[in-house]
């Protein structure tokens, strides 16, 4: 048999063997057996030196062709086997993606009221409001008298008060912060004053003796009732969405005039009327108004020059509405199953 024939036969046999390999290990072994230092191809090539030079050139060219073809086959086979191996791994490592995730360090939760408070706050900050703080236990003077609610004013009965002594109360609203602001800061200013307030209300689904308010208080020249409506619409839409309707209707507070209460269309029933909105389609969320001139004057400013706009909204109620919570008591029970939802 001539060299060419040997090479051709080798090529045929080697191709067959390579193609039949079932694993990367088989393939590597076949590679060594054929193309390795002592492989069959190498062995044949080693005998080439004995050939005449012109024959050597043609055999050499053929041998290189065979070698390249075999190497191509190996590469192809290797890729195919790798692909099979990968597929096997994928199959064997497949996971139940519906199984629950694992937390290496679970996050806690911010109370829904904190979240609601921040949302309202952020809108007002964007409108140029700054923050101001006042104490939870307040002078009767700041909580009532300076706010145009002297002792024995009948409207004092609107807010049942916890007393510490004759002159000190648990603040019944965040409005005493207005007095503290007017007597320590110089207008113009835009302030928001969040905090806890207290009223003698027996606990039930919609009443709590402790609750949270955010007081908004703007003092400047030339403010109007329209400006107040603008501020209120802005944050109601930010918190409840653009589709929520608002309704400012007349009311009365001793420290504002004109006074109003703001209703929003019920987020539970969309305004059709339900148990939460008592069938009216509206839910009251805050009281507001143009600051009463007596309050401005009590603090040493001329009410004909400086106009105030004020509103006090219940954070608890806003949070309940926002999240659809139907019982205010849940806000203070700190049940982990409740808190986890927010």
């Amino acid at each position, binding site marked *: 048999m001539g060299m060419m024939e040997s090479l051709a036969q080798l090529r045929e046999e080697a191709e067959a063997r390579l193609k039949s390999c079932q694993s990367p290990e088989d393939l590597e072994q076949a590679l060594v057996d054929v193309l390795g230092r002592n492989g069959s191809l190498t062995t044949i090539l080693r005998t080439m030196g004995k050939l005449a030079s012109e024959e050597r050139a043609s055999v050499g060219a053929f041998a290189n062709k065979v070698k390249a073809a075999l190497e191509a086959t190996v590469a192809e086979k290797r890729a195919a086997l790798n692909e099979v191996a990968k597929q096997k791994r994928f199959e064997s490592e497949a996971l139940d993606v519906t199984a629950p995730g694992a937390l290496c360090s679970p996050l806690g939760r911010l109370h829904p009221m904190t979240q609601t408070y921040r949302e309202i706050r952020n809108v007002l900050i964007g409108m140029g409001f700054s923050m101001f703080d006042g104490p939870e236990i307040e002078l009767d003077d700041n909580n009532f008298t300076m706010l145009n609610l002297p002792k024995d004013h009948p409207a004092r009965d609107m807010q049942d008060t916890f007393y510490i002594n004759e002159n000190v109360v648990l603040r019944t609203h965040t409005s005493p912060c207005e007095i503290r602001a007017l007597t320590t800061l110089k207008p113009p200013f835009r302030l928001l004053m969040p905090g*806890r307030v207290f009223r003698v209300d027996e606990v039930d689904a919609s009443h709590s003796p402790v609750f949270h308010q955010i007081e908004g208080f703007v003092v400047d020249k030339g403010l109007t009732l329209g400006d107040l409506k603008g501020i209120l619409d802005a944050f109601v839409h930010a918190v409840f969405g653009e589709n929520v309707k608002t309704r400012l*209707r*007349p*009311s009365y507070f001793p420290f504002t005039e*004109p006074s109003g209460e703001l209703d929003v269309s019920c987020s539970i029933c969309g305004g059709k009327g339900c148990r939460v909105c008592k069938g009216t389609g509206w839910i009251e969320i805050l009281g507001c108004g143009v600051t009463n*001139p007596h309050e401005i004057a009590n603090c040493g400013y001329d009410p004909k020059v400086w106009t105030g706009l004020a509103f006090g909204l219940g954070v608890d109620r806003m949070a309940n509405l926002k999240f659809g919570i139907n019982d205010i008591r849940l806000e203070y029970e700190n049940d982990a199953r409740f*808190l986890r939802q927010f």
Partner: protein
Amino acid sequence: MKLPKKWLGEYVDLHISNAEFIEKMMWRGFECAGVEKELSGVEGIVVGRILSVAKHENSDHLQVCAVDIGSEVLTIVTGADNVFSGALVPVAVVGSKLGGREMAAVNMRGVMSYGMLCSGSELGLTNADYPGSEVHGILILKEDYPLGQPIEIALGFDDEIFEFELTPNRPDCISILGMCREAAAALGQSFREPKIRPVKGEGNAADYAKVSIENYDLCPRYTARVVKDIVIEPSPTWMQKKLKSVGMRPINNIVDITNYVLVEYGHPMHAFDLACISGSHIIVRTAHENEVVTTLDKKERPVTPDMLLIADEQRGVGIAGIMGGLNSEITDSTKAVLFESAVFKGSNIRATARKLKHVTDAASRFIKGVEPVGAELALERAIELVSELKAGTVVGEMIDIRKEKPADREVTVSVEHINALLALDLSAKKMADMLETIDIHARPVPGGLHVTIPHFRTDIESGIEADWDVAEEIARIYGYYNIQPTLMRGDTFRGQINESFLLEDQIKDTLVSLGLYEMYNYNFTSPSVFDALLLPQDSELRNAVRILNPFGEDQSLMRTTLVPGMLDSLVRNANRKSKHLRFFEVGNTHVETGADLPEERKKIGVILGDETADFYQLKGIIEELFRVLGVSGETYRQSNASYLQPGRAAEIVVADGTRFGIFGELHPDVAASWKADGRVYLAELDVGAIAGERNSHKRFVPLPRFPAAERDLAVVVDASVPSAYLKRVIEAAASEVIVSDVRLFDTYAGFGIPAGKKSLAFSFALRAEDHTLTDEEIKHGMDAIIDSLKAIGAPLRA
């Protein structure tokens, strides 16, 4: 305020639905809480005629009736024995409602009864409402009503009553006339206040009675009229019906007249039996020491010298503005009456009512505010009714004791200012026209609007507030809904979340990221918690602020610490089998200091109660919080806090002695008081102290440019030696190299370690700023550390 639709209809043409009316009133500032039916609980009861009555075969006392209700003839079984063929009766058919109960067909001893015949009392009627209502048995109707007609329509009890919630600034609307005035304006109709026909009586009132006021400050006006030859009898049906429709119980003609006027005009009146007034002399005076007045409700009420009495020459005959005296009550034998219509100072009546714990209907009117002209109108109206009802002979004219004649109040308000407040541009004429609709007379004058404040509008000031008072009226009439929302103009402001609020945000966000749920606990606490926390008697935490009028003793104090509230909530969660028992709270505590206001301290509370929690996890949370907040250099030492377990309690302090707070494991005795199972770890930190020490402006420290050599070693020391001490020794030991990242990674005592000793293993890094350390330098560094440790009695562990 109850406003019956029919009464309203006497003044206003109510041509719209209830809902539309309610909305119009809402826009005027009058909120309607609901609408009630005059015959409450009666629904679907109709007129029927009994066609036949037969004895029930299986019963001695039951009768079987065939009843024609127009549309059909029903078989109805009744136990009443006053029914007869041909009688017209109220029939509760199947599906109708009576007193909240729905009628159903029932089998009565073998006979199906398709409904029930009703008695007058079942419908809530009395003889005064409809003759024969109180007879025993079924109500037999007297007139020929159409069969099948709803009973409330047939009998004229189909009124509806609006219940309005009034704001305290509108006492004038606690009256039918006040409400009708507003309702008419809301509906765009004109309201005409009824004219009272003055009655001039016979003779001279002074011959019959005399009135003196000793304290004009508490009683600025007292008007009275005398009526003699009184005939006490029930008031006419129309009056009784109207009184009942506003929830008042008819008594007799004289008392009913005063009540009727109270409802109509809103001014409380009283009628005295003149024969019981000693010397026929009414004296308005403050009470004497140790005086007692027995009021109409037969209660003996001790009165004090700050209270105003109506007295005669010998004794009190009533407590002014609260209730009349039993000794001068109108009885069936009363022959002559003195009608009182006075003005008492609201704040004084408020104080008296509170002191006596007796806020009567009259008192609440005086508290909300009455006025002198209204007093006179009410009295004249009462006398008009006396005459109309022929209840007696009116004597002479009004007795009117007062210091000053009531005068109209006038004020000029600025149209420009009102427009500016409301963002409107109304002319003075337009404003005057608007005000006229609610009987406020105004006319344009140069520079403004001259307003005559009607006597009944006590809420409108003639002083500083006048512009705002009138602006409010204009806004109400113009409609708040017509005022366009605008964004504030003028200077802009830099809005910002101030430092203290930012700190609170940062604290909360950090603790949430460390896995804690945020709690909100009440501020109220019980005096018993201090003993439960084992606090020493002189503990500052016992100086709690006490509430004068708490819900109960267990909620009578303001919390001085967050711990009890957190424990309550933790235990509640544990009892509910919650798996998550890691919480924090940021809230205020108060300590009584004797100053005007107590000291308010904001605190951070952390509580861990799950099985995996331990002391060092809690400490890790605290340390991480401090790093985020920019607090550094704090040290930890044993604390003797009473409610923490000794040896597992730490106090956090900084170099200047400021205390950040304490943390540790809950004392087992305290845990037992709270019925807390398992171990509980808690911390309480002072936000104010942290705020003062933190460096909120963090500075970048360049990263090391050369690699560090990481090493560790273990030493044996006395069990009592704190690891932080060794850590400081390691950090300071070598001067040639930088020792950093010193960390205790193992604590061991037991086999191989002598008793009373422990092994502590530390890891750390050695480095230089400007080159990689050589082996030689590392060895020198290690030697220095080992020598320093040995020098303080901490040799390497063998």
